[in-house]
């Protein structure tokens, strides 16, 4: 059944968890580079400051698009944590990013345009793998509903190791980590001024940032789904995955968009499709 209270808990707690995760990310990144790094609560200071800044409006429609981005990210996350339909969650999640792209396109800025184009390429790159992950979960548990997947005692990771690895690859794109931080990137990194967020300033940028926090919590929740049969293993897997992403972020230089698209699709094909094919082939042999 759909659990509305979990959705409410997500809407209230996710910004705090997401902001804290971003703080841990920046601290860890600094330590990996031999620096002291900012305070743990730095992301909250940043967003607090952005709300106090003047808002320069380039086009009035920007407001609508940025707000829609935030609303649909929150909606997709809430739907996920409430135990809703995974396909609907992915649909709302993609729609949210389309709104971000439209917001960047609405401003007639060449830097913003390049960012928007790259964001579109990223969506094209990661979308197949996310859908394959949902399909894989369906093949094992025979349901698209998150609460049923959560309740199932199947160790999904043992059935879908390839899909999980493919999802980790896609996670690098989604968390805006190097080498795939093409459209816009984190903290001190720059990318063609600032990519999609170039023309957003003050409170508008704060909303984009908060949406990104919601998004990160949702994505880590998606990782948990692979380990839902054992909560402890699930939480350890989330921590390992997140630290691994930070390590990758600090190890690799930025890739070109062609390489991003190619590698994302090749890995989705090699890991995801092959995994699903093997699963289909063995469906008569192992109890799926």
């Amino acid at each position, binding site marked *: 059944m759909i659990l509305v209270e979990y959705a409410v808990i997500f809407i209230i707690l996710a910004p705090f968890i997401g902001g804290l995760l971003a703080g841990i990310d*920046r601290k860890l990144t*600094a330590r990996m*580079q*031999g*620096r*002291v*790094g*900012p*305070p743990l609560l*730095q992301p*909250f*200071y*940043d967003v*607090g*400051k952005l709300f*106090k*800044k*003047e*808002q*320069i409006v380039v086009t009035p429609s920007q407001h609508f698009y940025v707000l829609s981005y935030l609303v649909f990210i929150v909606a997709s996350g809430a739907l996920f944590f409430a135990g809703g339909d995974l396909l609907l969650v992915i649909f709302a999640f993609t729609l949210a990013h389309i709104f971000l792209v439209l917001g960047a396109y609405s401003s007639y800025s060449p830097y913003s345009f390049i960012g928007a184009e790259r964001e579109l390429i990223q969506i094209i790159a990661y979308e197949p793998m996310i859908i394959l992950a949902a399909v894989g979960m369906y093949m094992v548990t025979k349901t698209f509903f998150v609460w049923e997947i959560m309740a199932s005692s199947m160790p999904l990771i043992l059935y879908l190791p390839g899909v999980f690895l493919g999802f980790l690859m896609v996670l690098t794109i989604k968390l805006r980590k190097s080498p795939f931080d093409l459209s816009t990137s984190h*903290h*001190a990194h*720059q990318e063609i*001024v*600032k990519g999609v*967020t*170039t*023309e*957003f*300033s*003050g409170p508008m*940028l704060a909303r984009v940032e908060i949406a990104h926090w919601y998004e990160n919590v949702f994505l880590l929740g998606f990782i948990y789904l692979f380990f839902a049969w054992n909560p402890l293993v699930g939480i350890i897997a989330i921590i390992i995955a997140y630290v691994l992403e930070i390590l990758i972020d600090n190890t690799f230089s930025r890739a070109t968009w062609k390489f991003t698209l190619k590698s994302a699709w090749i890995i989705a094909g090699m890991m995801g499709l092959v995994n699903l094919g093997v699963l289909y082939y063995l469906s008569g042999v192992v109890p799926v």
Partner: protein
Amino acid sequence: MTHLSKSPWILHYDASSCNGCDIEVLACLSPLYDVERFGIINTGNPKHADVLVITGGINEQNREVVRNLYEQMPDPKVVVAVGICASTGGVFRECYNVVGGIDCIIPVDVYVPGCAARPESIIDGIVRALSILEEKKNMPAPGRATQGGEK
């Protein structure tokens, strides 16, 4: 201390510096000085910046660029002139193409002397600029200049 001074994002612009001060500005970001521990981030985007750090004096080619960058920054904002050239024009003051210090184009809040300015004094200058940023927050917004502005 409010959030404003805990998260100053910097836009660094090289007006006509000899690169001496620029290297010192970049040294502030290195692990030795690590200004990110104050929440300082070097952005490349005037629309995200709070502090405009300029090295070198104004010349005829970049006076419009500097004014444009300044006007694109959202209020409240501060300007830090790093190095003697940014403050007064320095040794280049008499050159045929040099207009002078940054303050002949836009209002400057903090002058950091030195040739080249030491990273310690740059950090000191930026930290002083933060208290000015706090003061500006309480002042009424000066209002956005009309498109183009005066030449």
